[in-house]
């Protein structure tokens, strides 16, 4: 499509981006507000950022969430890459339809259902096996299950683009399949695996509902702390926390895209 941008498209874009960004911009703006009242401007201040550093509940929640997100992403990237291999390279094996369904359904499954069903499983397992104890480990299992779906989508679309003749050539030259994967396939798909890892990390770090269901006593993640604080009303400390988060995520997305863009160019 070419030619001048019609006025209709311009106004739609302006309105659309205003809608997407004005809540975020106003949130960032009021994080530097002197006043406790989030919406009355009383002068520039960074005191809420300072207060954040002394908020032990939020800090320990953040530490727990970082650990969970790291473990989740690492498990999901292994499971998701294996699942992507199975779906793209193994042809029509028995039980493929069920497998493909189980891989994609978690992408859209409402979180309350995933959370409730996993909690019921963990309670049943605890009754029969005496394991797992609910807490960090059960949250990681729950998060890895839905994050695997996202990793699979990202990796399999890359795997589908790879020219298979490279792998076939290596096989013809006598390389064992494991070596082919290690020397040819993995170097080609690692950017997708990294993207999947980051996506899994972000999804886990952000999740409230599934973590609340599957957590045990004492394990309160950052979103759980934020949620209980937001329920009490808006607070400038949450604005400060949100601002830090938005800045980190935005710079990561920009850097990742620059890298990907340069590789392609």
């Amino acid at each position, binding site marked *: 499509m070419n030619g001048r941008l019609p006025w209709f498209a311009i106004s739609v*874009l302006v309105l659309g981006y205003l809608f997407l960004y004005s809540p975020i911009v106003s949130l960032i703006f009021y994080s530097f507000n002197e006043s406790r009242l989030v*919406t009355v401007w009383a002068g520039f201040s960074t005191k809420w950022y300072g207060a954040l550093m002394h908020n032990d509940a939020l800090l320990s929640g953040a530490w727990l969430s970082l650990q969970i997100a790291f473990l989740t992403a690492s498990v999901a990237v292994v499971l998701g890459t294996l699942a992507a291999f199975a779906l793209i390279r193994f042809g029509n094996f028995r039980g493929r339809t069920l497998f493909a369904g189980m891989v994609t359904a978690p992408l859209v499954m409402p979180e309350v*259902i995933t959370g*409730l069903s996993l909690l019921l499983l963990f309670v049943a397992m605890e009754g029969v096996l005496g394991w797992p104890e609910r807490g960090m480990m059960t949250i990681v299992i729950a998060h890895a299950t839905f994050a695997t779906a996202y990793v699979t989508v990202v990796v399999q679309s890359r795997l589908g683009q790879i020219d298979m003749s490279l792998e076939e050539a290596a096989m013809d030259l006598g390389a064992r399949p494991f070596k082919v994967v290690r020397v040819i396939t993995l170097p080609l798909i690692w950017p997708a695996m990294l993207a999947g890892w980051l996506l899994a990390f972000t999804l886990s770090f952000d999740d409230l509902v599934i973590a609340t269901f599957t957590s045990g006593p004492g394990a309160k993640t950052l979103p759980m702390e934020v949620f209980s604080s937001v329920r009490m009303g808006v607070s400038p400390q949450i604005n400060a926390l949100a601002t830090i988060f*938005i800045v980190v995520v935005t710079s990561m997305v920009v850097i990742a895209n620059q890298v990907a863009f340069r590789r392609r160019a």
Partner: protein
Amino acid sequence: MKSPAKSFAARVRKLNQPGAAGRMTALVIPYAWLALFFLLPLLIVLKISVAESVMGIPPYEPLLRLAENATVQIHLTFSNFVLLLRDDMYVVAYLNSVKIAAISTLVSVVVGYSMAYGIVSSPLRWRYLLLMLIIIPFWTSFLIRIYAMIGFLKDNGLVNNLLMSLGVIDQPLAIMYTPLAVYIGIVYSYLPFMILPIYAALERTDPSLLEAASDLGARPWKAFLRVTLPLSMPGVVAGSLLVFIPAVGEFVIPELLGGLGSPMIGKVLWAEFFNNRDWPVASAVAVAMLALLVVPVMMFDRFASRYFRGRS
């Protein structure tokens, strides 16, 4: 017809092929994980939804129990589902969720399509930036964006302050804690999920098709309706499923932005579980929700297998 012995031999031969063991592990590990942590939990929900609730931990009766005379008794009750149908609260919340999700999806299609179309028709050097600005909210915390919406919509929030200072209104519009806030919240949070697949579909459309239509005398509007729109339908369907299905079960948005006037089924499930500690009724609510979503989820699965895996 293969004899069993032959097929066994074939299988052994297959196992001896290079890489067969590796292939088995690559398949079995994720398969087992998903069967254990995705499929089995759903079956347990189904099971507990027909169990009787009791006080205790866990707060439901086991379905199978060895009675004193060593026979197996099956405790199976549909009373949880009868309760859902009898009590207006559940029916209203159920229908309301479907209505809110459907209308939000429709609004997202209109807004998302217009924006995706705008991005595709803008000059190449702008497109990269415009797309990035869609992707960034997609990566940013869902909870934080809902929180930002509170500051945006509340009585002394940005919208009301702006409208009042412009003299459009004298007193703040009550948007927060109304169904309208829930609609705005859902469209706001799920919009990137609508824009990205539609953009992908529009970008793939061959511009020469539009030129051909216009050479044959079609007006731009007609060419859009007859060429662009049908070709971008896969994107619209994918986006709609990505918005509708999670929106039906949404909890955080109605909880933080909505009021008592907008009950949703996800909120009811949460309350049954965490406040009433009635696990069987919570499970029955989940089963009712799944019954509604099973067709859309299967549509999404079929769609995804064509869309993500291309040739297979």
